């Protein structure tokens, strides 16, 4: 179990490799990487609530371990100004079988979206910028876990 919040870029590949390195008890790793999309967006700045963020992420990760028999897990979330193509978040869940791994990774993302204190501000190509509105769909996605 590990949770990190950082402004530095992360190497999703290396993070996932580290998750299973030297382990022989992991049969399945599901991961999710969220990236900044370009197009109308020139950059994305992520603000967070230091202290509460780490607590919230650790609580979400602990809840995933309560619900599924996970062998390992990881949440890495960046803050600060990110450019299109850069990774924002990585979650990974490792277990014996694939269903637990897939479900836990989706669960981590759904809860992170609604319960972890991060806020995105988009800089658009026309020079304006604005805070991203929360999506109702994210509340719905969380609700499916009961």
């Amino acid at each position, binding site marked *: 179990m590990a949770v990190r919040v950082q402004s530095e870029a992360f190497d999703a590949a290396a993070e996932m490799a580290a998750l299973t390195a030297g382990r022989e008890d992991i049969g399945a790793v599901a991961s999710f990487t969220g990236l900044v999309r370009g197009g109308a967006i020139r950059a994305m700045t992520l603000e967070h609530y230091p202290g509460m963020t780490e607590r919230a992420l650790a609580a979400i990760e602990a809840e995933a371990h309560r619900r599924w028999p996970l062998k390992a897990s990881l949440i890495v979330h960046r803050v600060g100004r990110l450019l299109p193509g850069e990774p924002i978040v990585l979650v990974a869940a490792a277990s014996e079988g694939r269903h637990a791994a897939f479900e836990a990774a989706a669960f981590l993302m759904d809860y992170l979206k609604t*319960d972890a204190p991060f806020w*995105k501000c988009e800089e658009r190509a026309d020079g304006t910028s604005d805070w991203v509105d*929360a999506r109702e769909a994210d509340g719905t996605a969380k609700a499916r876990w009961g």
Partner: protein
Amino acid sequence: MRVLYFAWVRERAGCAAEDVAPGAGVTTVSDLADFLAQLSPGHAAAFADRTRLRVAVNQEQAGFDSPVAANDEVAFFPPMTGG
């Protein structure tokens, strides 16, 4: 009482954090919001539509009816948009 603001709430309030002493009449988050809203026009704008605000007391999600006390850390922010 330590009050924190994030995202557009911070921008409207004009500060990221402030220490306030709202007095004994302020016992809930709602009371505190009433008190903060009259500190400046920016604060008033920040608290104009409370349906758009979320709250944490001592770094745990809370509601406007949650109690607050003198040594609490209370944060106001929009719904979260990470990930």
